[in-house]
């Protein structure tokens, strides 16, 4: 999967895919250890700690929606519905089980993901026969129905909500799931399945004519997107109580805003915008009333002036980033000696 090497280019440090993978994994592990150390040594307050967890599940929400919106090119407006399904599934599991946290938490989250995945298939199969605006509306409709049903069921706690969920979500766990999500979606996109998904976004008719089963890939991409929304929901559930009213169209719209601002089709963009949009409201706490207004204005302005979002379709590779920095440095040094390569 390496790029075409142009002749005459200086040797790249991270040219082989193995070296890139190693770099990415090591960086991720380092970052995780740093965060965990900081939280354990009380350098991070519990407040900041919960904020980091929030950033974590917001990243997962944004990246997962990006799969369906940015990479598949659809417009799902019901992402919060899948989040809620995963949240309730995971929460009900941990509440009814009495295993040690290390064991029951990952199972609960995985369960949330699986249940959301199944919902994704059930909803995706009929919904993805529609295009564009119609798909948007129907996903919105399904999410609303899910919300009303949860609101009216006994075992979900109904409108009063589900309470007493163990607070399992820690920085370390969020990090693990963020990593899994980004890893899964990145590897998916950089594979033949990912190309199939992208081709549907580019031109569905041409994709079919090239032998791609568009129905299969639309549903699968949609379901995987839903699955990770469920994972995020599971993480979210173990930080608070669950109220169906929190999973309405507003929530779906907020997630969509994160993805669009970051750039549809850019995982890096989603990570950045999810982080910023989680932290910003907290920073603006003093202006609580005005913060939503500012938020809305920013959204509108970005759409009018830079609709491709922060990163556009650009996606980041740590390895090639470092290579480029080295190449620039090399060019500067060699350039001074009158010997630019």
């Amino acid at each position: 999967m390496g790029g075409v090497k142009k002749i005459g280019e200086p040797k790249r440090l991270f040219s082989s895919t193995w070296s890139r993978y190693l770099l990415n994994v090591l960086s991720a592990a380092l970052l995780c250890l740093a965060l965990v150390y900081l939280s354990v040594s009380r350098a991070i307050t519990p407040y900041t700690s919960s904020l980091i967890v929030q950033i974590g599940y917001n990243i997962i929400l944004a990246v997962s929606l990006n799969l369906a919106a940015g990479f598949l090119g659809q417009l799902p407006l019901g992402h919060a519905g899948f989040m809620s399904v995963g949240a309730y599934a995971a929460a009900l599991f941990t509440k009814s089980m009495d295993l040690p946290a290390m064991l029951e938490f990952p199972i609960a989250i995985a369960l949330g993901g699986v249940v959301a995945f199944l919902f994704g298939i059930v909803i995706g199969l009929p919904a993805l026969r529609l295009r564009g605006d119609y798909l948007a509306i129907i996903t919105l409709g399904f999410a609303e129905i899910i919300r009303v049903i949860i609101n009216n069921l006994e075992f979900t706690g109904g409108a009063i909500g589900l309470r007493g969920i163990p607070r399992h979500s820690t920085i370390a766990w969020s990090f693990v799931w963020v990593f899994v999500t980004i890893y899964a979606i990145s590897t998916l996109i950089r594979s033949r399945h990912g190309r199939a998904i992208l081709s549907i976004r580019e031109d569905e008719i041409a994709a079919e004519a090239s032998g791609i089963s568009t129905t299969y890939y639309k549903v699968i991409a949609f379901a995987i997107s839903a699955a990770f929304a469920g994972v995020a929901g599971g993480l979210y559930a173990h930080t608070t109580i669950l109220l169906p009213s929190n999973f309405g169209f507003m929530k779906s719209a907020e997630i969509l805003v994160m993805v669009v601002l970051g750039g549809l089709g850019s995982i890096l963009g989603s990570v950045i915008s999810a982080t910023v949009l989680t932290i910003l409201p907290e920073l603006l706490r003093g202006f609580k009333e005005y913060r939503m207004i500012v938020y809305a204005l920013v959204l509108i302005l970005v759409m009018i002036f830079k609709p491709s979002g922060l990163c556009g379709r650009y996606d980041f590779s740590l390895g090639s980033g470092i290579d480029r920095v080295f190449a620039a440095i090399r060019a500067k040094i060699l350039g001074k000696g009158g010997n630019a390569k």
Partner: protein
Amino acid sequence: MTVLYQLINGVQIGSIYALVALGYSMVYGIVRLINFAHGDIIMVGAYAVWFLMVRLGVPAWAAVPLAILFSSLLGMGIEKVAYKPLRNSARISLLITAIGISFLLQNLAQVVFGADPRMFTNLFPGGIPFGGKDLPYVTVVTVAVSAVLMIGLSILVSRTKIGKAMRAVSEDKDTAQLMGVNVNNTISFTFALGSALAAVAAVLYCSSYAQIQPTMGSMLGLKAFVAAVLGGIGSMPGAMLGGLLIGMAESLTKGYISSKLADAVVFGILIVVLLFKPAGILGRGVREKV
């Protein structure tokens, strides 16, 4: 007898949905945008009337037209500032902007008026005795006004020059422009008209249901939107039909099944329509050229 009352109820709320759905349909027909902010125009219209009457003491017969005017201007303004620059962009950008406007309106209202619900006086108090109970004047006025407006709108669209322009731009914007139609003005007019209807709907709705709050536009708008889709988005008679059907469905569900499930039924209808006839009852599908 209760069946009759449920039906009358349904026609009443259905008329309101119809008025709002018309706005959605007209705008969708002409710029292919699902104007998520449309529901919030209703809210703005309601607050405008309230503000004029309660805070400024303007009498009803002046406050209502002023509020309608304000809503129209607001609708046109939003189109000019936020939607027009994106006319040739990807659909998703337009949609997000509409969502942004919706957020903005809701939160501005919350900041200015507070989040708590306000009381709205019934502009048409009293009723006519009818089969044991009183048939509220509000109901009669709602249905009558809606009917008149819908007839008026139909005449406007089919007989007048601006109506023809609206239809032309809906079919083919570029050709309409080549034929001398002022596309920008036509679009502005459509938004103004839709917003005006929304304001009327707001007044009628609030006279019946008394409370106004910043989030009132959301659910109302969403259901009216379902009505527009049911009838066939882009089709005006469709919007009217859809509105009435949704109104009745909601009213009958509340009366005979459960008021909590009314919302689910409305969205259930949406899904059934989209799965079996996405173009809606009166809509036409468009084939993509390969």
